[in-house]
């Protein structure tokens, strides 16, 4: 039995079908990268899993608890959201709180952890992303890369069963991308289960152990980086890889 089972996920924006019945099982410790052309529902898939978007149909199972993603029950919604944590493209740190408070917030408010304990846990997570020297910096004092590292610490402090990462490096200056990618690499190596949307193909190759290619709201290819990049069978996937120069010269840079 898989750790997470997503079944029949459907989402429309108006008449535009974005997710057309997605089924996906994720094993514990897997790092799954979602790739695909823009507008194919990669981010929407993540956002449906924590109900930032409301899907038309679909269920998700965490362990032995199954959630109906269309349920209107508020308690169930809040319970579902505690299984996952999200890292956003725009970091979305709380601007009125310093780095330490950002990481403590969810522990104190949602998990009701006593303050002292929450602080200890937050300091550990901040240490891991290498931001211990900037505990009292507010988001406006931090670079994009630093903000994203704090955001990663904030997500991990809540010990999610599944970490959702929605293009975590897309909003960063090229110089700052590496520090965040290295952080994610370490997070992956620690055995966290991750569902990641990204355009950093070389990074995907080195860090993901499974890649999903999404097209027109459906999973059309699903395999290891080797299978996807070196031996693609799906025609649309081949075109996509050719378009982003990943088919002819697979090793143009390495992180």
């Amino acid at each position, binding site marked *: 039995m898989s750790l997470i089972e997503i079944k029949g996920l459907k989402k429309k924006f108006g008449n535009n079908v974005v997710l057309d019945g997605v089924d996906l099982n994720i094993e514990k410790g897997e790092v799954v990268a979602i790739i695909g052309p823009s507008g194919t529902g990669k981010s929407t898939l993540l956002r449906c899993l924590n109900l*930032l978007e409301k899907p038309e149909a679909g269920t998700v199972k965490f362990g032995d608890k199954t959630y109906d993603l269309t349920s209107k029950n508020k308690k169930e919604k809040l319970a579902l959201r505690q299984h996952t944590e*999200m890292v956003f493209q725009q970091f*979305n740190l*709380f601007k*009125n709180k310093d780095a330490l408070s950002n990481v403590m917030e*969810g522990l104190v408010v949602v998990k009701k952890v006593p303050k002292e304990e929450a602080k200890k846990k937050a300091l550990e997570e901040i240490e891991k992303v290498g931001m211990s020297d*900037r505990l009292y910096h507010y988001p406006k004092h931090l670079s994009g890369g630093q903000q994203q590292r704090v*955001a990663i610490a904030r997500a991990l402090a809540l010990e999610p069963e599944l970490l959702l990462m929605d293009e975590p490096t897309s909003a960063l200056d090229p110089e700052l991308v590496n520090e965040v990618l290295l952080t994610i690499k370490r997070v992956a190596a620690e055995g966290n289960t991750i569902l990641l949307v990204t355009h950093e193909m070389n990074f995907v190759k080195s860090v993901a152990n499974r890649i999903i290619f999404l097209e027109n709201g459906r999973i059309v290819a699903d395999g290891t980086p080797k299978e996807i990049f070196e031996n693609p069978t799906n025609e649309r996937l081949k075109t996509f890889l050719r378009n982003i120069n990943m088919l002819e010269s697979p090793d143009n840079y390495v992180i």
Partner: protein
Amino acid sequence: MAKLFDAALVFTQIPKLLKYLPTTLYLTLIALIIGLAVGLLIAVVRINKVPVLSQLAVTFVSIMRGTPIIVQLYITYFGIPIALKYFNYYNGTDYDINAIPGIVFAMVALGLNQAAFDSETIRSAIQSVDKGQIEAAKSMGMTGLQVLRRITLPQAITVALLPLGNSIIALIKGTSLAFTCSVVEITAAAKITAGKSYRYFEAYCSIAIIYWVITFLLERIMVFLEKKTSIPDEPKEVEA
């Protein structure tokens, strides 16, 4: 010729008028609380587009902003007793309108007027908080109320502080119209004093000074609050 202008009187009668300052401040404070509470409620109703309530709120804000405050005071002062008479008549009750002091009418009218203006300030301040932070808070599993209290409102307050300061200053001066509800605050007191001495010009000069000093103090308080709620320019370093 008698003195045309008694400059000394402008200052010597200030202590006498100051006796009525607590009434002015009390009226301001209660109207301010009503204004902020109802204003926040209206803002939240409108942002969440609550059916029926939202439309009622829009109409309320439009009417309150579209009519002079003095007219609102008169309507409250004369309207509530009429409404109470009807209520008594149809329900066979015997509530006495004279049991309610005039200041209550003034508080309600000024408070609701304030609420109409504050609701727009609060609404725009809340909407200025970027959606990403709200999504981050929600995805953590925070309830709507927790998001409002911990993330949205603290940031909205910083944005709303300056325009709210304006509206509080307008309110303090608005209390000078409370005489329409037979409340004796400093303006009414000045009129009464001048009615005896015929020194109207001096009386108005005296209260002008009082209003200006209060407003000046209030401006200082707002500057202090602004500093306190804003995020420091320089980060605090971690001590080694």
